[in-house]
C-alpha cells in the first residue's frame, strides 16, 4: 500500500470530555466538569464556553427528543457527540470530513480509552485527571498520526502491503499465532511489523486497539534515551491489563481456541465449542476459504492440546521449544476437565485464586481478591521476564501495572460499600457463572456492557511485535508465559529477518489514474495516492470520495455512482465487502455536460475494472 503522508491541516479541531455530574449546582464553575480538553492550549474561557454551551444544548435537545444527541453542527465545525450517564464527549472536525467518519472516530477514541483503562467513570474515580488527560492525548494523537485525508474518511487498519510480501511469510506469521494459542490462556494474537499488521486473529477493531500500545512502546523504545534491559529471554516483553467488551470476548472465544483445553478458565462451560475455523489471518479473513494451509499441524493442534506436539509444526524450531518446555508435564490445571464446574475448590490453589479474582470483579469478593493481588506483586517482582519489562523504563507498561493494582484496591473498597448496600453475593456464590454473560468486569450501570479485564502481552523483536490477548492470570503463570515466549522466539526472529529485507514497497506508481479501495471486512485501505503534501491534484478525488462514501453509508441500496464536476469525474462502487473509488487522469474533460454516451466519464466503470485488476481489486 502506498505510504499516505499526513495532510497538513489538523482535521480534528476540538475534543473534550465533560462530566456533568461535577456541575450540578448553580454556582459550580463549568471548568469543574471539564475532564479533558484538546487542544490543551485552548484558553480556559473558551473551554468553558464550548463545554458549557455544547453540553447544555445537548442536554436540552436530548430531553426534547428523548434521545442523546449524536451530531452537532456549526457553520465552521461539526461535532460528533456521545452522551452517556453524565459524561459528554465531543469531537470536532472540519466540515470536509464525512459526518459518519467523525462519529466513527469518536467511538474509536472512547473505545480505545475503555480498552486500556476500563470504565470511564471508574477511571476518573481512581486516577487523577492529569494522568487520564495524558491518556486521552495519547489516544487522540494516535488516531490522528500519520493520517492521510483518506484515513479520516475510512478508519482503516494499516497493513503490510501483501502484494509486496512473500505469501509464505504471511503464512508463517499465521502459524506463529496459532501455535501461541495452544497455550489455553491465550485467546488470540496478532503480529505487527513497524506499525503495520502482518497477521491477526482479532477483529480489525480489536487489532486497531492493540496497535496503540504497540506503537506507543515502539516509539518509546526507539528513543535512544530509553535503555531496554534485556531479559533472560533475550527480547523485550511487556504486558498490560486491557478491557474487552462482552461481544469482543465472545468473538474471540467463538474462534479458534480448543475449547476442551482452554475453557477451564473461561466460563462458557456449557456452550459447545464452536469450531468455526482455526484462525483468521490476513490472508484468510473473508470467511470463505477452508482451513489454512497446514492442515496436519492444525488438526493435531485441535486434537491434542498443549505443547507436546508443538514441534510438529515445521515453522517452529524444535530445539527452542523443547529445550524450554517440559513437554510431558504441562501444568496440571490445563488438563482439567472443562465440565468440572463445581470443582473449583479442587483445583490448584492458583486456579482458585484466579476464580476469585474474576469473582471479585463482579461479586465483590473483596477479601480473596485482595489476597490474590497481594500475592500478585511478588510474582511480578520475581519473574525475571516481567522484571525486565518493569525495569526498562517503559512508562506505559509500568503505569499499566501500577494502575491495575491501584484499581483493584479502590474497587475493593468501593465494592465493599456497594455490596453492603445491596447485600449481594457472599463468597463462594457465583451468580456470574451461570448467566449468558457470565464473566463480568467493571461496569457503571446495568446499561453499559460490562468490560472484562484481559492481559495484553507484547513480545518485541526489533521492528516485529507479537501481541497476544490472554487470560489475566497468564501474567502470573510463568510457565505458560515462558512456553509462549520460547515457542515463538525463534520463529519471530526468523520472520523479522525476512520482513526486514522486504522493501517497503514503492508507493503505488502514480499512474494515469487514482483509486482507493476499502475492504470493509478487514478494514484495510489500498490506494495509489501520491501523498504529496497537500495533495493538491488529488483533492478533487478525495472530496468526491468523501461525498460518495457518505452517500453509500446513508443509502443501503446504492451500488454505484458517477459524479462529475468541472475538474473531475469520479466513479464509486460498493458491495457488502468493499468500496472502491476511481478517477482517470488526463483525457479531455472538456465536454458540454449534456448526456453523451461517448463521454469518457461513463467509461470509468470499465476502466476501473480493468486497471484495478493489477492492484488485486476485483470489481467483477
Amino acid at each position: 500500500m502506498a505510504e499516505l503522508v499526513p495532510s497538513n491541516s489538523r482535521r480534528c479541531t476540538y475534543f473534550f470530555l465533560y462530566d456533568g455530574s461535577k456541575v450540578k449546582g448553580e454556582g459550580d464553575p463549568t471548568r469543574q466538569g471539564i475532564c479533558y480538553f484538546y487542544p490543551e492550549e485552548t484558553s480556559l474561557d473558551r473551554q468553558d464556553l464550548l463545554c458549557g454551551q455544547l453540553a447544555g444544548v445537548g442536554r436540552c435537545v436530548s430531553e426534547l427528543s428523548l434521545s442523546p444527541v449524536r451530531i452537532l453542527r456549526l457553520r465552521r465545525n461539526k461535532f460528533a457527540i456521545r452522551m452517556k450517564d453524565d459524561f459528554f464527549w465531543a469531537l470536532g472536525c472540519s466540515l470536509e470530513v464525512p459526518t459518519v467518519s467523525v462519529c466513527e472516530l469518536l467511538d474509536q477514541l472512547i473505545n480505545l480509552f475503555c480498552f486500556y483503562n476500563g470504565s470511564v467513570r471508574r477511571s476518573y474515580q481512581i486516577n487523577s485527571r492529569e494522568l487520564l488527560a495524558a491518556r486521552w492525548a495519547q489516544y487522540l494523537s494516535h488516531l490522528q498520526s500519520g493520517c492521510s485525508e483518506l484515513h479520516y474518511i475510512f478508519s482503516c487498519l494499516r497493513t503490510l502491503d501483501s502484494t509486496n510480501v512473500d505469501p509464505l511469510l504471511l503464512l508463517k506469521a499465521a502459524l506463529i499465532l496459532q501455535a501461541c494459542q495452544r497455550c489455553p490462556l491465550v485467546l488470540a494474537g496478532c503480529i505487527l511489523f513497524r506499525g503495520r499488521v502482518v497477521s491477526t486473529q482479532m477483529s480489525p477493531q480489536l487489532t486497531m486497539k492493540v496497535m496503540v500500545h504497540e506503537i506507543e512502546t515502539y516509539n518509546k523504545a526507539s528513543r535512544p534515551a530509553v535503555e531496554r534491559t534485556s531479559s533472560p529471554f533475550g527480547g523485550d516483553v511487556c504486558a498490560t491489563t486491557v478491557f474487552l467488551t462482552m461481544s469482543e470476548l465472545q468473538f474471540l472465544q467463538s474462534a479458534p481456541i480448543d475449547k476442551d483445553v482452554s475453557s477451564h478458565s473461561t466460563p462458557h462451560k456449557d456452550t459447545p465449542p464452536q469450531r468455526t475455523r482455526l484462525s483468521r489471518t490476513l490472508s484468510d479473513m473473508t470467511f470463505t476459504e477452508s482451513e489454512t494451509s497446514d492442515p496436519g499441524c492444525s488438526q493435531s493442534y485441535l486434537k491434542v492440546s498443549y505443547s507436546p506436539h508443538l514441534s510438529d509444526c515445521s515453522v517452529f524450531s524444535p530445539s527452542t521449544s523443547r529445550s524450554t518446555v517440559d513437554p510431558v508435564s504441562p501444568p496440571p490445571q490445563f488438563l482439567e476437565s472443562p465440565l468440572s464446574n463445581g470443582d473449583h475448590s479442587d483445583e490448584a490453589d492458583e486456579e482458585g485464586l484466579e476464580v476469585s479474582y474474576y469473582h471479585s470483579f463482579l461479586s465483590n469478593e473483596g477479601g480473596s481478591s485482595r489476597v490474590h493481588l497481594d500475592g500478585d506483586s511478588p510474582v511480578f517482582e520475581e519473574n525475571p521476564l516481567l522484571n525486565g519489562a518493569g525495569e526498562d523504563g517503559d512508562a506505559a507498561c509500568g503505569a499499566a501495572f501500577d494502575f491495575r493494582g491501584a484499581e483493584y484496591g479502590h474497587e475493593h473498597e468501593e465494592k465493599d460499600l456497594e455490596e453492603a448496600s445491596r447485600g449481594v453475593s457472599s463468597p463462594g456464590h457465583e451468580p456470574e457463572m451461570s448467566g449468558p454473560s457470565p464473566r463480568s468486569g467493571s461496569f457503571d450501570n446495568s446499561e453499559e456492557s460490562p468490560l472484562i479485564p484481559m492481559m495484553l502481552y507484547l513480545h518485541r523483536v526489533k521492528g516485529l511485535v507479537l501481541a497476544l490477548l490472554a487470560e489475566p492470570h497468564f501474567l502470573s503463570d510463568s510457565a505458560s508465559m515462558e512456553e509462549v515466549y520460547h515457542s515463538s522466539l525463534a520463529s519471530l526472529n526468523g520472520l523479522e529477518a525476512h520482513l526486514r529485507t522486504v522493501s517497503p514497497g514503492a508507493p503505488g506508481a502514480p499512474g494515469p489514474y487514482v483509486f482507493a479501495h476499502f475492504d470493509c471486512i478487514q478494514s484495510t485501505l489500498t490506494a495509489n495516492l501520491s501523498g504529496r503534501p497537500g495533495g493538491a491534484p488529488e483533492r478533487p478525488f478525495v472530496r468526491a470520495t468523501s461525498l460518495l462514501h457518505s452517500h453509500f453509508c446513508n443509502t443501503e441500496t446504492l451500488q454505484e455512482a458517477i459524479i462529475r464536476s468541472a475538474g473531475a469525474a469520479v466513479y464509486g462502487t460498493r458491495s457488502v465487502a468493499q468500496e472502491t473509488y476511481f478517477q482517470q487522469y488526463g483525457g479531455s474533460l472538456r465536454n458540454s455536460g449534456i448526456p453523451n454516451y461517448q463521454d469518457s466519464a461513463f467509461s470509468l466503470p470499465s476502466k476501473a475494472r480493468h486497471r484495478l485488476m493489477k492492484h488485486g481489486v476485483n470489481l467483477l
Partner: protein
Amino acid sequence: MKCLLIASESAEVLFHWTDPEFQQNIQEQYGASQEEGQGLPAFEDSISTQFAPIIISCSTMVDRLGDSYTSFTTENNHIYVLHQFDECLYIAVNGDGEEGEDDLRRKIYVMKKMIEVMFGMVTLSSNLMRRELRPQDTEQRARLWTHLQGLLETYSQLRENDQSFLVEVLAHPSHSFCCLHLFSLYYIILMTSKSMKRLNFRNASTLSTSDLLALIIMAQNMYPSNTDLDDPGPESTSGSGPESFYTPEPSPTDSTNSGSTPVFEFVDPDIQMAEDSLQTLEVPPPDPSTPRRVFLEVSLKEGLYPMMPHSMYCLPLWPGITLVLLTKSPTSAVAMSVYKFLEAFAKLEKRLSEGHEGSAATRGQPTIFDIRSKLDKFIKALGPSEIQSAQLQHVWTEFKNRAFARGGPGFTKELIPWCKNMKTQLCGIYRQCFLIEPGPSDIPRRLSPSLQERAQTMVQEKLMDWKDFLLVKSKRNITMVSYPDFPGLIHFICVDRSTERSTSELGKGPVAQFIKSKVWSLVSTTRRYLQKGYSTVTLRDGDFYFCYFLWFENDTGYKLEAGEIPPLPDDSAPIGMLAWDYYRKLLRYYSKHHQGEVVKCYELLTVHLGVIPSEIILQHCRQLASKLWEPSRNPLL
C-alpha cells in the same frame, strides 16, 4: 413529529407551528417539569420554555465564538435545523424521518420568503418585525399565526404532491392559450392590472419565479383545490400527474422614473390610467372583497426593486381554478424611495463597521450625499400626509448633525447606531404606508367588485374551452406512463431553467407512488451534489438507474462547455427558486465567461430500470435532451 419555530434573541416565540404529536410531546415534558395542580399552561409558554436554552445558547455562540449552530441530530434520528436571519432564529424539527436536513432548511427559507411577501421591508428591521409577527393582541396573534401555519402546510402539501413544486419550476406556455394543453394547468392564472385592461397577457411586467411560487402557495391556501392526490381509486386522477403553470410571458419592463416623483402620485402612466378607469367604473360596493397586500420584486430599467407593494385578489373561477389579479400599489413610489434610502444606510453601516472612516466610508453607490437632499424632500412630502413622520424627521436631523455638520464627529463608528436608527425609522414609515389595515379612505383604490366580477366573467368565457379540455385531461386514467420510444425509461423531468419550462409526466397508482418517492429522493440527492459542484450524476440504486445532467447552451442550441459550478457551504440556502433563486445566480455566474451570448441552462433527470445497459440509458438521455425543446418533434406532446 414536526415543528417550526421562530424566536427572537431573547427567546420570545415569534411564531410556531407544530403537528399534534410534537405539541403533545412538549406539553407532557413541560407538564412534568411543572408543579402539580397548576393545570396545563398555554402551549406558547411550554414551547418557549422548552426551547429557551437552545435559543439562548445560539446567541451566546454567535456573540462569543462567531459561529452558530446549523443542525443537531439525535441517536433516534430527530433532526433540528437552525438558521438565524438577523435577530430571528428559525428552528425546524423533524422526528419522523420524513424530512432530511435539506428539506428542513428549505422549509425555513420558504417560511422566511412567505413572511417577506407578507411584510415587505418591515422584515429589514428586526425590532419592527418582532412586533409584527407577535401582535400584542392575542386574538390578532392567533389569526396571524393560523394564517402562517396554513401557508406552511400548503407549501408542504404542494411540495409533497406536486412535481413542479418539487423542482420549483413554472411552466410557461410560450405564446398563448393554445399552448395550455401542452402543459396542462395547475389551475392558477396570474394577471396583473395592466394586462387586465388590455385583456391580453403580452405586456405584463415580469414577476420573479420565486414570487410566483409564493403567490401560488397563498392562493392555494385560500382556495385549496380538492384534487387530493391521496384519493383512492384508479379514476380519480384529477389534478394529479401532468401539471404546469400558466403565466404571462415576459415583456418589456415598465418604464418608471421614480425617485424624483412626488409621493402618492401614480408612477406608471399605465397604472394611472388603469386606476383612473377603475374609479370611473366604480359602483359603491355592497361587500367589497378585500385584497391581500403582497410585496413582490419588480424589475425596472434601473434595477430590481424587491418587496414592492401589490394588491392581490383571488377570485375562484371554477372549483380548483382560481384567478389571481395583481395590482401595483399606487403608492409604490414611496416604497421605492424607502428602499433606496435603506440601501444607502445599510451600505454606510457596513463600511463603518468594517472600519472605514471619513470619505472611505461614504464611497459606493448610492452615497449618503446623493441621498441627503432626496431624503429631505421625502420627509417634506410626508409632512402633510397622515403618516407620522416626526420621529423620522427627528432622527434624520440628529444624523445630519453628526455626519455632516462642521466640527461634528463625521463618519466614524459612532454613527453606526444612527444608521440603524434611520433604518428602523424608514421601515416604520413603510409599515405605516403599506401594512396598517387600510381605512375607509383606501377603498376607492381597490378594484371595484364590479370590475372584479367583470374580469372573472371575461376570463371564464375565455377559458371555457380549455376548462373542458382540462376536465377531460384530468379524467384520463394514467396509472403509469410508458414511453414506447424509450424502453426501460420510467420517468423523466426536463427543465429549462432559463425560461422555466418543464416537461414531465408522472402517473398514479401504487407503482407510480413508489416511483414518485424515488423521484423525490433523486431530486434532493442530485441537488446535494449540485450544491457541491457536481453537475452530472448517475446512480445505480436498487433496481433503478438514475441520471442527472445540468448543461448550458446558447440560444442557437449550441452546447457550451461545462463550466465550473461553485461549491456552496452546507448551510447555504437549498438549491431552488422559491427560497433563493439559485438558477438565476448560476446563469449570471456562467454568463460572465460567455459575454455577448444568451446562455440557457437545462436540467434532465431520468429514472430507468436498472437492467437496461448504461449505454442505452445514456442514449435515451441524449435523445431526450436534444428533442425536448423542439415542439414538433417532441416525443411526448
